[in-house]
């Protein structure tokens, strides 16, 4: 079976996330431990069989954060005796009574096996809340068996905000929800809110749990990633905080439209025509500058680097870059983006990143290639790569300009790809 296909031969319903899966050595994408550790003064308890515990424990160890997690191993005895609830209850109590400092929040991760054995963990949490009233307990899930309907990552991004209660909303404060990276000057919205004296709260920038709890005061919640949508929707329903999903788009008109919606929700003026014109001009200049450096060097993009890899590829192609391939396992972007890309570059290679047939693909590229993302770098075996995940802190015009700078740097200066991509949870500074 061929490892890739041309986009002109590819159906919009393309899905490489079926069949046997391969795990490439690119490890930068965050897992649930990285996300959970964003909550200050928190502790994570994983309740799973050994095979599931191993990955999360060593993720934590590699972060140097072993003091922020504990484990309760599910054994054969629990399955046979049906005492999962008692084990969870007693284990959690033992952990909390042994920790030198009581955490403010405890995330308890149950696993696939708990679903199948119909464990009544909510009852255990109710008891724990009575016994430890100063601690917020949150039910979290490491249950990849549910990945088709409720994948663990977006579910956790929702759950960590479940401790946020109702409060009076401060019209001069908003929240960025579900981010992994602190967005500041590379994000149009942050810049615009700063100009209008609006305070932005973001879990990635919180040093204390009390600071995190002030998320309740925000008048609007902004999300920038699909994986954060569950959190945004949940908080809108529960807390009546307005939710605005900022689309991670490379289409100038979409950026402008979203900025208008965001401004309206925050009660501030939208960016003026002059600001938009200026922004577009500066961005086009940045793109031209990048093109002058990168020139005809082929470019490869992957889905772990940016939220909208097809749209990003289309943006680059329309600006004269030689995009050659996109590593992606399923199309989640609008069909019109896909069709425009088909028309713009019919011979664009669409490559899976986790399907079994990529394991024995010949890694490498004839001549220099610039990769955007770790998987593109790995499969093309190139040291010229932009080492980012999940668009990092970039949004809007400022984000595009930052991306151009990073592409220039990546094209000019090779990095040690082999070592860098194997670091788990890239950029996680917890």
């Amino acid at each position, binding site marked *: *079976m061929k490892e890739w296909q041309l986009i002109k031969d590819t159906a919009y319903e393309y899905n490489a*996330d*079926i*069949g*046997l*899966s*391969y*795990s490439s*050595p690119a*490890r930068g994408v965050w897992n649930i431990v990285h996300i959970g550790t964003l909550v200050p003064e928190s502790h994570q308890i994983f309740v799973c*069989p*050994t*095979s*599931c*515990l*191993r*990955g999360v*424990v*060593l993720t934590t*160890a*590699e972060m140097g954060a*072993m*003091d922020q997690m*504990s*484990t*309760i*191993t*599910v*054994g*054969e005895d*629990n*399955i046979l005796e049906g005492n999962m609830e008692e*084990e969870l209850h*007693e*284990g959690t109590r*033992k*952990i909390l009574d*042994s*920790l030198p400092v009581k955490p403010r929040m405890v995330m308890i991760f149950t*696993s*696939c*096996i708990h*679903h*199948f*054995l119909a464990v009544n963990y909510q009852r255990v949490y109710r008891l724990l809340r009575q016994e430890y009233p100063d601690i917020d307990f949150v039910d979290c899930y*490491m*249950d*990849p*068996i*549910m*990945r*088709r*309907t409720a994948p663990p990552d977006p579910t956790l991004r929702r759950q960590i905000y479940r401790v946020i209660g109702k409060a009076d909303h401060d019209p001069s404060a908003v929240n960025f929800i579900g981010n992994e990276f602190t967005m500041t000057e590379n994000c149009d919205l942050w810049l615009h809110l700063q100009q209008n004296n609006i305070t932005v709260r973001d879990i990635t920038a919180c040093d204390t749990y009390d600071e995190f709890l002030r998320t309740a005061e925000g008048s609007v919640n902004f999300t920038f990633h699909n994986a954060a949508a569950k959190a945004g929707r949940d908080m809108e329903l529960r807390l009546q905080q307005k939710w605005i999903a900022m689309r991670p788009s490379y289409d100038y008109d979409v950026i402008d439209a979203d900025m208008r919606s965001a401004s309206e929700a925050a009660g501030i003026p939208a960016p003026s025509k002059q600001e938009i014109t200026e922004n577009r001009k500066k961005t086009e200049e940045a793109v031209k500058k990048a093109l002058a450096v990168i020139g005809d060097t082929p470019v490869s993009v992957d889905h772990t680097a940016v939220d909208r890899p097809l749209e990003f590829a289309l943006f680059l192609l329309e600006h004269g870059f030689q995009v050659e391939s996109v590593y992606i396992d399923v199309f989640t972007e609008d069909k019109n983006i896909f069709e425009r890309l088909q028309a713009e570059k019919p011979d664009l290679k669409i490559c899976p990143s986790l399907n*079994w*047939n990529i*394991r*024995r693909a010949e890694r490498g590229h004839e001549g220099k290639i610039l990769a955007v993302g770790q998987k593109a770098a790995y499969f093309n075996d190139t040291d010229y790569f932009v080492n980012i995940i999940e668009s990092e802190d970039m949004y809007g015009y400022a984000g595009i300009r930052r991306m151009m700078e990073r592409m220039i740097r990546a094209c000019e200066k090779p990095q040690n790809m*082999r070592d860098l991509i*194997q670091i*788990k949870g890239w950029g996680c500074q917890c």
Partner: protein
Amino acid sequence: MGNWHTHVFTSTYTADVSGVCSALYELGGMTVLHDPSGCNSTYTTHDEPRWYDSDSLMFISGLDEMTAVLGDDSVIIRDVVRAAKDLKPRFITLCGASIPHIIAFDYRGVARLIEKETGIPVLPVATDGLKSYVSGAGLAMKEWIRRFAERKAEKIPGRINLLGVTPVDFSRQENADAMKKVFTDAGYSVRVFAMGETFENLQEAYQAECNVVVSSAGRNPAQYMYKTGKIPFVEGVPCGEQMAERILQAVKTGTNQYVCDDYDPEGKILVIGEEIFAKSLASVLKGKPLYPDIDEGLDEDLLLQEMEKAEMIIADPLFRYGRRGNAVFIPFPHEGYSGRLFRKDIPVFAGKEFDIERYIREKK
């Protein structure tokens, strides 16, 4: 005694599924972990130093909720057949984690169906994700031997097998080579299960006059070969000259031998690690070994008590977390515990040249 399930401070040993993959990694097969997700990336990230530089076939089935609820085995059969027809592995291994276990997945039956459709031998290794790597590696090696080793092969004088050699316990090929050298220097020809060895060489397993079990993962295949081929086994790791000599002497007896000393329960040097390694090192140091149970791992309460009583602890650096007492801590990384975290610090501890006293002096 505490509750073995709960670990407040310490890590966990790797699981049976990683043991299966590690044991069979170099033999040209395709291993399929029947599991939703995670086990494969955990294994290839933390437990498999050969992953980046080789193209061995390790995959996960991606079991999802509906497939599990419906018990629809046709999904994994179809997926494995499709991949196998394309990749043409020499054999296929089927193992899995806790969900296949609780839905009573029929490893043997599914293996037969895949084999029938592809014509490729399929090894069913019924792991459950609940046990340590020792169980998985042992089951995998035993199953491989059962299926592929030439049982009626004539014994060759001076031939031995080293059983239980995987990177989970020995990390570096240099360790496997150093162990091999102990025996080749003494005039033996050696087959190593299974690092740096070929499929064909290992098919000659029953030519051996003795099996040397160098990690507890080697016990299961050793007992199987004793039962089926009357091949005696000797347990011990040749970690330094003293243990190497003991093992060489034991091999000559032609009987089952456990060369490690009975330990002193009051020993003040605590060696924590894989059972045969810990016992071997403790024998040299007159210390006390502490090792994980296959089902229950290490009871953390017991572990902390023992660490508090010790004057010196030789263990993986991750055991530093939660440690009480004032014992001198000598870091001795173990891939099966801390994964890749301290991989570059794992010494060549096998072979006559290794001197534990010198190692301790250097690490103090």
